[in-house]
């Protein structure tokens, strides 16, 4: 079987910065310092009106192409839950905007916070079977478009962003074995209900039935915070241990652990529950927020830039969230 590895990552955050101070001006009960202490976020970026996930994907990919030859890309995979159109697939539009070759495959897949792990699993499979050699894997998300302006909880947590990774055939087995999981019974715990064909967009939708601060409607993103937190408490410690076991590793064999950057409070709770030492557990969201599928590649890139990760080291990554969906693997950088 042919091996694959992540050979490069670039990311792009939109220019519009929303700080905790900005949020507390809109929501006077929201204490900016308290938010930062608790969720580990001081500011997040939102895309401008008219700036789409596809646009962020182009920016991130062009940054990658400063070091990578675009003519070598022979497959493009994009993960988003805020696509430019119902159809065509955003990845097809990107093929042209990025001036990629015509003799390549391009497709989108729709996942959130688990997306990067699933993208790696797909890419690894395409390389192992000889379908592709150099895959551009892009995570691009603009949850801000789904959020109601008065939804202070989600506006605090989520930020927009895109990360472009190159997954290439390699000597090194840089993407190890996967543990994946799905529980569709929790589909409504994190959802944008209206706008598809089961529940069409409703311009006159009133406040959704769920209680809470603000007036989000079923046209907006809804997150049942307690349910999603309970799901992570239930699934993620086992996921971590199963990923180690599947790869025949002990936790000491792993140099760094990067979880989906959900929020600092949840991450620290999981870290303590699993028993991961803080120096091996990377938290990276103070100036970005939770950028959904892009958090893990962004954190990988920053950890490398900060010198926390060196070539040949092993990172255990876990993604988890909307679906409900989760997955983990070990990568060698």
């Amino acid at each position: 079987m042919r091996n694959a590895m992540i050979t490069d990552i670039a990311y792009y955050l939109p220019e519009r910065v929303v700080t905790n101070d900005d949020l507390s001006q809109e929501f006077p009960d929201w204490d900016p310092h308290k938010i930062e202490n608790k969720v580990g976020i001081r500011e997040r970026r939102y895309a401008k009106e008219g700036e789409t996930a596809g646009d962020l994907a182009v920016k991130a990919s062009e940054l990658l192409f400063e070091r990578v030859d675009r003519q070598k890309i022979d497959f493009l995979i994009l993960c988003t839950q805020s696509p430019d159109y119902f159809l065509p697939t955003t990845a097809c539009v990107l093929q042209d905007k990025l001036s990629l070759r015509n003799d390549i495959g391009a497709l989108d897949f729709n996942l959130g916070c688990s997306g990067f792990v699933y993208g790696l699993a797909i890419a690894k499979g395409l390389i192992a079977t000889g379908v592709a050699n150099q895959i551009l894997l892009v995570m691009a998300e603009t949850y801000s478009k789904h959020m109601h302006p008065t939804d202070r909880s989600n506006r605090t947590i989520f930020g927009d962003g895109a990360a472009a990774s190159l997954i290439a055939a390699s000597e090194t087995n840089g993407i190890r074995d996967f543990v994946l999981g799905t529980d569709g019974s929790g589909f409504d715990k994190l959802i944008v209900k209206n706008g598809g064909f089961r529940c069409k967009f409703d311009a006159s939708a009133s406040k959704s039935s769920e209680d809470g601060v603000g007036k989000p409607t079923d046209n907006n993103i809804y997150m049942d915070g307690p349910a999603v937190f309970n799901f992570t408490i239930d699934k993620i410690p086992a996921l971590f241990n199963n990923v180690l076991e599947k790869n025949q590793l002990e936790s000491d064999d792993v140099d760094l652990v990067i979880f989906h950057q959900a929020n600092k409070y949840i991450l620290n709770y999981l870290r303590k529950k699993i028993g991961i030492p803080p120096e091996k557990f990377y938290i990276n969201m103070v100036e970005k927020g939770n950028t959904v599928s892009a958090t893990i590649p962004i954190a990988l890139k920053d950890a490398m830039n900060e010198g926390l990760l060196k070539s040949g080291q092993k990172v255990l990554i876990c993604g988890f969230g909307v679906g409900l969906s989760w997955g983990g693997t070990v990568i060698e950088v």
Partner: protein
Amino acid sequence: MKKTEFFEHLLEALEPEEEISLDQDTDLREVEEYDSLTVLSIIAMTDEHFGVTLSAQDFKEITTVQSLMDLIGADQFE
């Protein structure tokens, strides 16, 4: 767990800005800090100390500290 110990854990979760005291009859909905952030801490606290998972529905039913203790289970307290 002793009730006084539970009240201390609950206070830690709420992180009140001004000093407040809690007892069974305190109405949590009237505590200024009781919001979507502190709810996370209460979930973590009940998971850590009681192995009890509280749902969003549970939080809709919580009024007083006593009602939270009822959800955790009366047999958990001395």
